[in-house]
């Protein structure tokens, strides 16, 4: 019962460094999402994908890139990390894009110093 798996769980980056957050799901879901959650705030959508080879911007895409070469994987890349990207990142997937079937990963805590 792996569900949605995110790595790493914790990471500290220096300003200007780059990194990739990995996300994989084994439920054969078409829809995948990346959210960020700042302290005391709700989740904001960064990027989403409705299927392999298709990605689109969410509310807060600046400073990030994604790719979806397979149904299972949806990595999120941070280029030139900035302190404003310090946040908790959640990957999620769903079968039909409806909210009640969305499955979240455990989260990745990222600090940029």
């Amino acid at each position, binding site marked *: 019962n792996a569900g949605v798996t995110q790595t790493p769980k914790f990471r500290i980056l220096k300003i200007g460094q780059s990194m990739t957050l990995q996300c994989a799901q084994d439920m054969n879901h078409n829809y995948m999402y990346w*959210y960020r959650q700042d302290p005391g705030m*709700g989740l904001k959508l960064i990027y989403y994908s409705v299927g392999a080879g298709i990605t*689109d911007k*969410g509310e807060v895409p600046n400073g990030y890139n994604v790719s979806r070469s397979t149904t299972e994987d949806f990595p999120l890349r941070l280029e030139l990390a900035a302190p404003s990207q310090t946040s908790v990142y*959640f990957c999620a997937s769903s079968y039909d894009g*409806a*909210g009640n079937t969305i499955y979240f990963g455990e989260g990745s805590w990222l600090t940029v110093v």
Partner: protein
Amino acid sequence: EDKVVQSPLSLVVHEGDTVTLNCSYEVTNFRSLLWYKQEKKAPTFLFMLTSSGIEKKSGRLSSILDKKELFSILNITATQTGDSAVYLCAVYGGATNKLIFGTGTLLAVQP
């Protein structure tokens, strides 16, 4: 701009109290409203509401939607310390047909 607003931002109660959490929204192309509970990790699904006036209930938790007045409430009766969490409201819809989250209500239940 689509938005979801929750109130209060935080709440401290004692075990056994009843609490009501509020969620109002202005979202085009409304499809459903969802409530999640978040305890330090990923949100877990509580309810999905699509029709006005029909109460959803699960144990001590219940929720109802008013599509005319554009709000929903989440009630928790006989609160327990295990109810301490952030409760998130989200609306599925909007210009991009995705989940739009509120900022959440932080509930702390004291023994």
